[in-house]
């Protein structure tokens, strides 16, 4: 559906010619995020620079009943920043300012388009950092991180994005600029800040974010342990957590990923291992030393083939290089893959890894694993060849089977990527009708017209539609007179 001339004129008047993308080739750049299964270009892309401009865009679209899709850096993995119903995509790439850094109160306020790592870069000299570190942190925006409640390797110890957001300014689907939260520790009323983190643009467009800054730790120690198989490595992970040690990061790579990484960046991980664990401890030096010894002992007890500890920053960087380059290295083993993001209780890792091996064999597909083992957050890449007929379908089937297995173990559909278009259909696995309906009604409070990033996050399901009411408990006979 093309935009009306009046909406186009309104956007151009507001943002100038450089602030609106209308050409087909220009819009094509915005047709998908990093999950290219879902492609749909918006009718226009708006590039605001201020909160006021965002508000005017929302009101303009609302009056014309035009869908609004927010976009940060477009590095999401869920088909979130794509426009299946057309409409106006609002790109935050011109809202990249750090508005304030308040060291005494350990926080900073930024615009949503600011790149995650830029914030840490701006405060590191003073000894501070912004903890959420999605693998995309060199390119992903903090607004995008807030929209998806992004995680990252170090979220094991530090928590995900929501644990670091103190306040937000958001233009909701009603066209209001709502300020929630703030620097202070306590406030009266519902925790709207907490509710809005992870809304994937379905409540509105975040225009400013106040985040917590943390002090850099005194010491960091990174170790690598290799194992004969993912099952043994998983048992070591469960044993570390059960021993009461929460490392800063606890990542696993399986043999397929080790091979791909070594081929891409040189031999950083031992060949021939079935899995490696990358274990990082940080904090006060004496604590890190003691815990590192303990972790190494646990790995050895669990039949580690080898445990090495990085001796200096260069060695540490090398151990992480493999992990960080993993996504790029995948291209060496497959042309296409599906990416899971389910979570299992971390004590069930050995069980789900065994199940994964069985699923992989059953469908004759390669699974490559690189994931946040300490959280139980799986990221298997289910590799397929899209030139071979039926292979995508097989990969999708394997994907579904694995997801069902995770939920059966008490897990969740998404640990850190979010729902978007890709996983909405899976939510009913995890939530009953009443639960889905509650979320739908919550969404409607902020987006009464259904224009904010439509067709994302919630499934097409009767419980997520107007007029649905979950069944109430039946009162005992005779209660009514």
């Amino acid at each position, binding site marked *: 559906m093309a935009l009306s001339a009046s909406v186009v004129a309104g956007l151009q008047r507001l943002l100038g010619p450089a602030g609106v993308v209308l050409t087909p080739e220009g819009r094509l750049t915005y047709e998908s995020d990093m999950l290219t299964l879902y492609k749909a270009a918006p009718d226009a892309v708006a590039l605001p620079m201020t909160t006021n401009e965002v508000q005017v865009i929302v009101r303009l679209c609302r009056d014309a009943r035009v869908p609004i899709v927010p976009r940060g850096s477009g590095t999401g993995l869920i088909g979130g920043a794509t426009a299946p119903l057309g409409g106006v995509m609002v790109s935050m790439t011109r809202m990249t300012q750090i508005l304030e850094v*308040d*060291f005494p109160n*350990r926080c900073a306020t930024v615009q949503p388009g600011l790149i995650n790592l830029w914030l840490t870069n701006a405060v590191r000299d003073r000894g501070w950092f912004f903890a959420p570190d999605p693998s995309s942190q060199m390119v992903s925006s903090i607004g995008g991180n807030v929209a*998806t409640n992004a*995680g990252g390797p170090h979220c094991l110890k530090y928590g*995900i994005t*929501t644990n670091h957001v*103190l*306040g937000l300014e958001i233009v*909701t689907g009603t066209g*209001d600029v709502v*300020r929630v939260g703030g620097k*202070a*520790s*306590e*406030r009266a*009323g*519902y925790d*709207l800040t*907490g*509710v809005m983190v*992870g809304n994937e643009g379905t409540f509105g467009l975040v225009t400013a974010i106040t985040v917590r800054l943390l*002090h*850099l730790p*005194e010491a960091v120690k990174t170790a690598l342990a290799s194992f004969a198989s993912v099952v043994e490595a998983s048992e070591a992970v*469960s044993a570390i*957590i059960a021993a*009461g040690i*929460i490392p800063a990061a606890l990542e696993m790579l399986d043999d397929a990923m080790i091979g791909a990484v070594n081929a891409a960046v040189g031999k950083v991980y031992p060949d021939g291992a079935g899995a490696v664990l990358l274990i990082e401890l940080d*904090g*006060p*030096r004496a604590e890190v030393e*003691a815990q590192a010894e303990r972790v190494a002992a646990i790995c050895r007890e669990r039949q580690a083939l080898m445990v090495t500890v990085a001796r200096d920053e260069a060695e540490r960087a090398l151990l992480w290089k493999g992990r960080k380059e993993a996504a790029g290295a995948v291209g060496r083993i497959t042309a296409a893959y599906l990416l899971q993001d389910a*979570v*299992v209780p*971390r004590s069930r890792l050995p069980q789900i890894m065994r199940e994964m091996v069985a699923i992989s064999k059953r469908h004759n597909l390669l699974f490559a694993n690189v994931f946040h083992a300490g*959280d*139980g*957050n799986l990221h298997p890449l289910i590799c397929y060849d899209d030139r071979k007929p039926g292979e995508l379908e097989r990969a999708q089937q394997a994907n579904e089977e694995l997801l069902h297995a995770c939920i059966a173990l008490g897990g*969740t559909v*998404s*640990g*850190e990527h979010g*729902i978007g278009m890709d996983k909405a259909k899976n*939510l009913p696995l*995890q*939530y009953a009708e009443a*639960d889905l309906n*509650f*979320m739908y009604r*919550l*969404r409607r409070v902020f987006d009464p017209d259904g224009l904010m990033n439509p067709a994302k*996050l919630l499934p097409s399901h009767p419980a997520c539609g107007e007029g649905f009411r979950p069944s*109430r*408990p039946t*009162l*005992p006979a*005779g209660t*009514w*007179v």
Partner: protein
Amino acid sequence: MAVTTSAALADGLRAIVGAAHLREGGVPVDGVLPRWSAAPETIEQAALLLALAQDARLTVVPRGGGTALELGHPPARVDLVLETRRLDAVLEYQPEDLTVTVQAGCTAGALSAQLAARGQILPLDPPGWAGRSLGGIAATHASGPLRQRYGTMRDLLLGVRFAQADGVLTWGGAKVVKSVSGYDVPKLMVGALGTLGVLLELTLRLHPAPDHESTWLASFRTPAHVQECVAALLDSTVQPNRIELLDARVLAACGLPASATALAVSIGTVEPAVRAQEGLVKALVQRARGTVETMGASFWRTYDRALAGFEGVTLRIGTVPARLADTLASVHAVLPEAAMAGSAGLGALQALTGHAEAPALQAALDRLREGVGDVGGSVIVERAPRAVRERLDPWGPVPEPALAAMRAIKTEFDPRGVLNAGRFVGGI
């Protein structure tokens, strides 16, 4: 759609929970005698009570440990108190996952005893925590000294089952430590005072208990020195569990010399790391011209009892750490008899004052609220005699349009005002 008589309604309530667990009257809520009090044995019974209450247009007050019933506007009317005391089971403790699922009536003390056997903790320690229900701690967003390191219920609640105002049992969140599947419904329920649903089951993140812990009491001559020391601690690599402020009156209540303003700092980790950080803590205290004394293991119990022992008016002040000295000065200027304590490293403070008349308290609140507005903070009357709270706004102003959004949420989920009607911010 109306129950004809009070007797018929009582029969209906009785049919749900059994005669032994429905009382006429009950313990007054904030001075108001309820018509009935019901103690369901199952969450299904709790849901049925709400379904009946909504149909019969009753107002319902959920009650956990009963320690925070003075929070909020006084209720105009209480038809039914829904007591969670029989819903006190630990449903699913997974020590290997550091998670636990409990019923909302389980007290923090009862859970703590079970966790201790496995070397784990739920680090939620608001004053009098051992006797408080976990559902109540969630509904009131109560916190204590350990929030410095571990955060609050907001950070620890992974999943929640609640009954909506119409009795529909609903689940939000997940039972694993990391989940972004759908909206973060648990966040909506924390601090909502049960106005959107009665909390029935909570899945919580646990932490390993530290191997070793030490506490030091640092005394300073002036609040400015206290603030200097807090700033130095925050801008260091020390990882304290607690950085707690105690003014002279709170020190006295703890049976300590009441000569100064103090910080109680604790560090919990492996023993060599506690010792290594001790030196740094002491150096930072001395640089701010304070004196340090090592406290025994019982200090935090004493402190907890001392805070829980204050009678009268409690204000919960949410500010920022850089305004610690200013806040102390403002409180002492407007409430000269107040004692002050709280998480200095976060600016989450409380003022405790024995007695205050409504006009004086209102004037004090106006002044204090002025001082936190620009940082999004608040000054909440956590406890005060009903006669005082009736004449002021215990929550303080919530700016528009955020308040309008809160009202819209309440209207969506409890249109008839069944749950704690009128007691929350803006009369929600």
